[in-house]
């Protein structure tokens, strides 16, 4: 079965008059952009479904790790095919090897036990908390939307809000463009190239545009079926495609400055695999997606901060189906050319039975929103008072961290 992956639309539809626009949605991967003034770039990567942080950054230095993880434990660091050692305590899943380059370059910060203020097991409520900035606030706007507002939207204000824009970017005053659907094509960037190639040729350019429009209808149906049949559980595989497009847009001089990448498929209740398998494939997609993003940004990578977060983590112990159930804390990351990294941040609560959260997941050692605030204040340069009162109110217990930005 051919992979139905997204493609990039005419850039004008993305940028013209729209402060926030969702650009693609396919295979559970999508990205949205927003225009703001200045050169600083901020990318938020949302891993929907609840990331098993222990699998991505195994704490092999923790004496309880192998015992508690049982069948999901990876071979120790420095053994052949084992965990890639980061700092003697935490390692990296070998499938995410692409992240090692960021770590070595001092561009990656890891928070191995990160949560927001949400307590519970609902994906939706937890994601709302991650995107609105608070579990209890009842806010219907996204914190990134408020941040874009604080930065001063680069374009005029629109009125309509499309459901395709993720909550994190939703809010008043930010128009959104409808999203072109995906098409059955392996390399979506290619169609953009073809359009550019046809620019001068009236016949070819009009036909290709019409053809894509016509094709949409068919593809829509196929994708819906795909989703229903539960295909593409390891959807992060397609992240590099979205990352390449987002990176190119962010890199351009007149392009947007803020982007959100979303990848479904992290809810690994069944057969998540250890060294190999579905979760490993997702890790590989995530890591290569981030690395594609960096190269697509080119020199602008130096101006970029990427925050990667998931709504919650998973149980430390595997369940009866070779998977893990909803837990509590999980790993979050901040990376970028503007990040002063190579650091592990937050407390490590430990993995012994008595130290776990009541869900059987990792207890809280860090507030994810500290990374958001670090990016907004120290990197994007939003006034500290505005961050504290408008963008992420009620998060005094989760301060920004000065030393993490270059």
């Amino acid at each position, binding site marked *: 079965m051919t992979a139905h992956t997204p493609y990039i639309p005419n850039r004008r539809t993305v940028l013209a008059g729209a402060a926030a626009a969702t650009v693609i949605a396919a295979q559970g991967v999508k990205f949205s952009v927003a225009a703001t003034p200045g050169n600083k770039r901020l990318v938020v990567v949302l891993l929907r479904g609840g990331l098993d942080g222990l699998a991505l950054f195994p704490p092999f230095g923790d004496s309880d790790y192998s015992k508690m993880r049982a069948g999901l434990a990876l071979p120790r660091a420095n053994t052949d095919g084992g965990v890639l050692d980061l700092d003697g305590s935490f390692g990296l899943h070998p499938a995410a090897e692409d992240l090692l380059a960021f770590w070595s370059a001092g561009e990656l910060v890891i928070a191995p036990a990160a949560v927001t203020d949400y307590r519970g097991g609902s994906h939706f409520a937890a994601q709302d908390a991650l995107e609105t900035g608070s579990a209890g606030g009842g806010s219907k706007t996204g914190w990134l939307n408020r941040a874009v507002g604080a930065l001063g939207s680069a374009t005029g204000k629109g009125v309509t809000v499309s459901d395709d824009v993720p909550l994190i970017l939703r809010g008043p005053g930010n128009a959104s463009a409808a999203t072109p659907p995906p098409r059955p*094509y*392996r*390399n979506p*960037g*290619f*169609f953009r*190239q*073809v359009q*550019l*190639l*046809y620019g*001068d*040729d009236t*016949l*070819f350019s009009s*036909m*290709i545009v*019409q*053809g*894509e*429009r*016509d*094709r949409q209808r068919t593809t829509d149906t196929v994708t819906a079926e795909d989703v229903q049949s539960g295909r593409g559980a390891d959807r992060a595989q397609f992240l590099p495609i979205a990352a390449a497009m987002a990176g190119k847009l962010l890199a351009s001089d007149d392009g947007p400055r803020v982007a959100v990448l979303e990848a479904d498929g992290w809810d690994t209740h069944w057969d998540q695999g250890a060294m190999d398998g579905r979760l490993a494939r997702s890790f590989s997609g995530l890591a290569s997606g981030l690395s594609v993003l960096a190269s697509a940004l080119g020199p602008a990578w130096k101006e970029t901060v990427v925050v990667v977060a998931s709504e919650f983590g998973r149980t430390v112990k595997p369940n009866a189906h070779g998977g893990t159930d909803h837990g509590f804390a999980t790993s979050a990351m901040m990376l970028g050319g503007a990040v002063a990294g190579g650091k592990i941040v937050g407390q490590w609560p430990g993995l012994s039975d008595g130290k776990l959260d009541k869900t059987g997941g990792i207890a809280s050692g860090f507030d994810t929103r500290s990374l958001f605030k670090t990016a907004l204040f120290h990197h994007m340069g939003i006034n500290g008072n505005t961050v504290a009162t408008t963008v992420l109110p009620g998060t005094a217990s989760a301060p920004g961290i000065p030393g993490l930005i270059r």
Partner: protein
Amino acid sequence: MVREFPEAFEDHEVGAAIAATRFGYGARPQELLQIGNQPREWLLSQMISDPLPEALKSLPDSKDLLSDMLAARQKGRSSMRVYRQEARKRALNEAATHLAVSLNSPTPFIERLVRFWTNHFTVSMVKPAVMPLVAAFEREAIRPNIFNSFYTMLHAVVSHPAMLIYLDNVNSLGPNSVAGRGRKNPLNDRLARQLLEHFTLGEGSGYTQLDVRALAHMLTGWTVGVNNPATRGEFAFRDSWHEGNFKEFLRRTFPSAGVLEGEAALDHLARSAATGKNLSHKMAQAFVVDEPDPGLASGIFAGFVVGGGRADGMARGLVEAPESWVSEQRKVKSPTDLVLSVLRSLDVRSRSGRRILNAIRMLGQPPYQAPTPDGWPYSSLSWITPELLLERVEWCAEIAGITRPPDGKSVPDLALDVLGPLLKPATHRRLRVARDEVEALALLYASPEFQRR
């Protein structure tokens, strides 16, 4: 090291690129250099080669193919079913072999001319009865005659069993003939109609329905031998089916003369100026532009007239007309043109041709299977609809993904090698900055310069 885009091209470089692209099936990587500064001579010199290459000479002739069919039919239904399956397979193999010959040919202008005339005189596999014969028809009626007098080709075409079966002349009886008298609607005028409307004079050239009927009468009795061992599987004239009496055809009186009547009618048609104009217009459309300028058509027509209606004269007229050499690419390649030119640019040679056939079929032009007797259209817009263009682009990406430029060449260099001055600097630049070789190659093939002729 990728070559820079040249600051200027020589005139003859433009000529070489046009010769290979517009008159052939696109250049192989070294071909523009081989054509050098004599593009016209390169084309004209091909006209002394044998249009029936060795690879096609060993294939069975239509007499044998038809005899097989008649034998199977005599044996009964089940053997006919087996025969049909076999025949279908064999017909597709032959069609594929013909495509391989076109791809490998050192004389691509001949191959283009063959395809032009084969399409002009369409016999399509869409009619199951002629399926086994379509490739043999090209070998026997078209190829040997593309540099002959037009009458010779026309006669070979109209008397060929494939055409007689395809347009139902095999069962056309004169209403007053011995065999036809008393029958209901014994006459079939499809062949006569197509002859006037399409093969020769052309629609709107002034003939009437009475002329169609007269020609149909003259062609009664033109059929295929079945029982007589001497003509089994070949052209046969059956006098008892023929409509006697004189005929008034195109304001002339043709006396009753059996098989000679039809030949006289074809001769008259083949020499007519209207025929020359119709054919010239179509050849100009097929090779140069959808709406030919009068100068171009009259250049081809001048070639037709010399020697009293010659197909080779038309080819020469086409090459010599200055309008054929304008650098603007005004035609979109048909799927056949596109697939063969992609493969030639990769310096590929084929033995069986099956993959070529499949690719062309996928892009909407199943070889030897034109839907109607009028053949495949020449208009560019028939090949570039939104859906077809998407399919083309996807096919280009697909083939780019499973192949590599020959001799380790970079894609921008390959583009300059096969398109020469037809390549636009902007496209060259895009090929240079494509994210990888596959994308670059796909973009080369998807580019308007490559998609056009």
